Each structure stands twice: as C-alpha cells, then as structure tokens.
C-alpha cells in the first residue's frame, strides 16, 4: 500500500488521538473516577490503527478487550466516552461497558468478556461474507493470552479449512494479565508457531504502524480475493497494568525498553524526517485533539443516567417484564 502524505498524516492523527484519549481516561480515572474500569492500550496503538487503516470501512472488526484505536476510528467520540460513564448516549445506553460494544452500523462485532470467545464469532462473520457474497473481510484482534484457549485452534482451523476471509491479529504484549506469556506457552519464540495449520502467518513489528498496515493489507487482499485467512502476530507492549486496579509487577527496565520504541513517536519522527509535517502542524493537531477529547468527557459527565426501563432490553421480538413474564 503506497501512502500519500495526507494518508500518512491521517495515520498519525489516529495514533495520537488514541494516545490522548486514553491518557485522558487515565487522568479522569485517577482524579475522580471513571465508572468503567480502564484497561488501557497505551503503547499498543499502532496495532489497531495500522490494521484498521488497511481495512475498508465496511469490513468487520472483532475487538479484544484492549482494542481501543479501531473503535475510536469508527465510532463517534462522544458515544465512546459516554460508554465509559454508562450514560444514555453510550453505545448501549448504559447497559454495558464500552469495551464490549457492538455496532452493526460501524462494523464492530459485539463481544463478550470471555477472552478469546470472539474468535469463532469472527469466523462466523466470514461465513456471512461468503453466503452474502458481499466481500467483507473480518479482522479479529486478540491478546497473546487468547492463544492458549481451544477457541484459537478451532477458529484458525475452520477458517483455513473453509478459506474464509478472516485476518487473525494477535496483539502480543507479552503478558496475560499477571503471567508472562512465555511461562504458559510451549513455543520456541513466536505464537504463530502454534498455528501449524495450512494458512499464511507472520510476525510483525507492532510498534510501527506502517509495518502493521503493510502486513494487514496483504492479508486483507488475500482474504478478499478468496484465498483465505492469515495469522499475524503483532509484537507490542502495554505501558499500563492489565487494568487500573491491578498492581504493576513487570520489570521497570522492561517497560522502559519498550517505551523507547513508542509507536506514536516512531511515526512522528518519520513524518518529520520525511518533511510530511512540521512542528507547528504537530502542535495544532495535538491542541485540537485535546480539545475534542476534553469536550467528549465534559459531554459524558453531563450526560444523564439511563432510566430504569433501559435495562429491560433483553428480547428483540417479544416484550418481557422484569419478572420474566411475557407481556400480552
């Protein structure tokens, strides 16, 4: 994929947008609380941004608990922020947390809190694509931890057997909650060794949005041409603990080492070196993103709590009362 300057600026905007958004979430959480416990992806932005950029707008995205950038790229910001506050303007009007959101309109497959249970659902989106002949590709994001579930194997196998248009993207940040992934996986080096199935796979530098974009584009093309799934392992790192309540126990030096390959900085430096942007442009962008993000928090903080009837939204085609009885 050959990028023009405008596209490169757009990628950077998305990286910085995700970064600033989550920094703001963290500030808000630390200063007064955000009802949804933040599971921040700071440090992993290039994976989501690069991969989403490789997809077309109506391709499906099946996010993991930590896949934030793709959601921010597709869903109006106020809706996402309100989702973290559980107010009426959130994606489910406060019924559920933002990080499980589903939206047919925005091509986001709703998900569950069972890590890895969405892999086969993403393969199912591939089945729909084939049945409907609509050429939509399904991109599923998941952490390294999910590769130790049977779901991973069954989803890869079935997608490969059926040549379904699925791109499997491992967000390998080296840790599954408080356990280092190498402690619980019997691979030599890379998780793609697990695959062993008849499908192409590769390891990608997940801190470099251009690398992510290139690898994902190739996989998307393959899928769209009817040549089946691809497994991509993005090597990345989260700067924050698994979730904000959890004690950090990773090595200080490890965190520091990864911060030296910061995805936002890598991209900014490259754009500066290539003369695609200048300092003034960067400053303007940062200021306007901060303003937009601040506004979304102000909006969410003033957005009303949902009325009680909002939660009686359980069946689509029949009215059921709070005691589980059919209303006639």
């Amino acid at each position, binding site marked *: 994929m050959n990028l023009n300057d405008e596209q490169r600026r757009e990628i950077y905007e998305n990286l910085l947008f995700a970064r600033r958004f989550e920094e703001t979430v963290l500030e808000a959480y630390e200063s007064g609380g955000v*009802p*949804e*416990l933040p599971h921040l992806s700071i440090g992993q932005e290039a994976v989501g941004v690069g991969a989403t950029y490789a997809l077309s707008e109506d391709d499906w995205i099946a996010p993991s608990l930590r896949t934030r950038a793709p959601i921010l790229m597709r869903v109006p910001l106020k809706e996402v922020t309100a989702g973290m506050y*559980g*107010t009426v303007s959130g994606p*489910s009007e*406060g*019924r*559920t*947390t933002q990080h*499980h959101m589903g939206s047919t309109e925005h091509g986001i497959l709703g998900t*569950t*809190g*069972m*890590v*890895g*249970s969405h892999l086969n659902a993403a393969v199912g989106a591939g089945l729909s694509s084939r049945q409907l002949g609509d050429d939509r590709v399904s991109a599923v994001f998941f952490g390294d*931890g*999910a590769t*130790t*579930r*049977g779901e991973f194997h069954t989803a890869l196998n079935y997608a490969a057997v059926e040549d379904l248009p699925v791109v499997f993207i491992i967000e390998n940040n080296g840790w*599954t*909650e*408080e*356990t280092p992934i190498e*402690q*619980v*996986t019997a691979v030599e080096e890379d998780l793609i060794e697990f695959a062993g199935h008849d499908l192409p796979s590769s390891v990608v530098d997940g801190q470099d949005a251009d690398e992510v974009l290139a690898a994902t584009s190739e996989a998307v093309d393959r899928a769209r041409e009817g040549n089946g799934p691809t497994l991509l392992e993005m090597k990345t790192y989260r700067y924050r603990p698994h979730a904000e309540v*959890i004690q950090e*126990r990773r090595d200080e030096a490890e965190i520091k080492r990864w911060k030296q390959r910061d995805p936002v900085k890598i991209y900014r430096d490259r754009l500066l070196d290539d003369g695609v942007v200048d300092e003034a442009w960067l400053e303007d962008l940062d200021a306007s993103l901060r303003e937009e993000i601040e506004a979304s928090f102000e909006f969410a903080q003033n957005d009303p*709590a*949902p009325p*009680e009837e*909002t*939660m*009686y*939204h*359980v069946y689509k085609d029949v009215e*059921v*009362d*709070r*005691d*589980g*009885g059919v209303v006639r």
Partner: protein
Amino acid sequence: MSEHTVRESINRALAEELERDERVFLYGEDVGDYGGLYQVTDGLQDRFGEERVFDTPLSETTLGGTAVGAALTGTRPVVEIMFGDFMAIIADQITNFAAKMYFNYGDGTGVPMVVRTTYGAGDQFGLHHSQSPIGWFQNVPGIKIVAPSTPHDYKGLLKASIRDDDPVIFLENKLRYEDEGEVPDGEYTVPLCRSERKRKGEDVTVVAIGGMVDVAMEAAERLEADGVDAEVIDPRTVVPLDKEPIFDSVRKTHRLVIVHEAATFGGFGGEIAAEVAEEALFYLDAPIERVGAPFTPVPFAENLEEAYLPDEEDVIEAVQNTLGR
C-alpha cells in the same frame, strides 16, 4: 477466636489443607506468584512451592478438564476460576464429566475437586463479570454447590469441600472479601449439606443465599425495630439442599421469603418455593415471596446496577407483604 476477613479465612483454609494433605494442589490463572486477582491465594506459592500452587494458561477448559482427570487419579485439585461468569466455559467439564463419574464408575471412585469462583454484582464490572451462576448448575445431580456467608463459614466450608469426595463449586461473593468476623483459631470444619439458622424468629422465615444472607440479617434487625421477628436460614450448601430445617421453620412461622442475587425467574428461590408448596403448603398464612434480580443481564450503569441488585428494602417489603402490611 479472632477477627478475620473472608479473604483471610479462605487463604487460611487453603493453607491448612495444603499443609494437611499432600494430594491437595491449587492452580488457576494468576494464582501463583501474583496471589490471584483478588489476592486470595497470596503467599501460598511462596509457602508451598510451585508444584503445589501454580499458574495456568488462560483456559478454563484446561483447568476444568485437568482437574477432573487429576481428581479421578488420586489427587485433590482446587481450581480457581477468576469470575463465575467463566463457569459457562467449564460447564461441560463440570456437568458432563465431574458430576457424572461417581455414577459412571462401578468401584466407588469419586471426583474430589473444588472449583472456587467469584460471583455477584455491585462493582460496575458489567454483564460478563457480575453474574451469579447457581442457576446454571442447580439442576445437575452430582455436583455440590456451596455458597458461604461469613468468614467462619467460608473457612470451615472450604476445608470441608476440599476433603469432600464429590466435586464442589465453591462460590465467593466479590463484595464480601473484606467482611470481618469471628473465626476460631484452632482446627475446625463446617459440614457440607447442612443449613444453619443464622437468626431465630417467630414471625417469618427468610431463606437467604451467599452474599444475601447479610442483607437478610440487616433487614431482620430493622424489622425487629418494627416488632417483626424474622428467622433467617442460610442453606450454605445450596445443592444438595438440606430441606428439613426450612420446612420446620415454615411450619413454625407460617411465612416464607427467599432471597438470592440471581434473577428470580428460574432461580433457586423457585425451587425452595416449590418444595415448601409441596411439603408445607397448608402451614402457610401468606403467599411465598421471592426476592431476586429482574430477568435481565447485569447492567453496567451505577443506577441500573443498584436497581438490579436486591437490597434490604426489597427484603423488608417482601416480609411486610407476607404479613399483609
């Protein structure tokens, strides 16, 4: 006696059983070095080593399946499932395997495994980290379901569960880990399959489960100020159920209220109500009242979650209904 939290009581129960019986081992996601998401297994790996207390890959099927296999072959595994919601994932291993092997073997082989898990709403953790899974398993013969309510019972029931030769689901209420209470300093167990009367009363029987026992007890205190004398029964082991004390109590008070956290419809309260209707219907002076959650997933927004969770007010209202007030 000394004061301990629920968390400490569970931790001490595990430590004592690991100490007592070398066939016992403890494993799950992050239970080793980290000490478990809720820090319940804190320090146990240091004390008993990585062969007795260890981390696993993120796979509840691995945990459930290997625990069944280990329990069938001479050890006594204790598994931690981080959230009760994930019990849906190991439901196959529990319902089709663990619960049925004693029935399936002809030589008395049992399945001495314990699956500890957390349950319950109130933390704004949303629809997949807040459920109360009793209803998912109550109709499965062969499994024991234990839901303690005090630090004393958490400790004694967990020790008894580990020594039990049947598979046990041991339910820990997330909101109760910090609760404190008197716990004996010496060795003791609390028998499985025995309910306990937590409060003696004459006017109404309140059967409450797990985290709702405290809610019922507090409601009973407030009712007393109103001149209503409530008896509170805690089944402690939900399945199989120690029914007689409930029947006896209802024959005495002539009124029954059942309180649990999961949805009322299809919930365990319905089973108790049906049992009492069969055994003691004509002793009842008022329709049975059930207090539970509405028939929806657990909502995330603070006000919705509050509306969802049963509280003292709900219990008091139900009791007043049985008294025709």
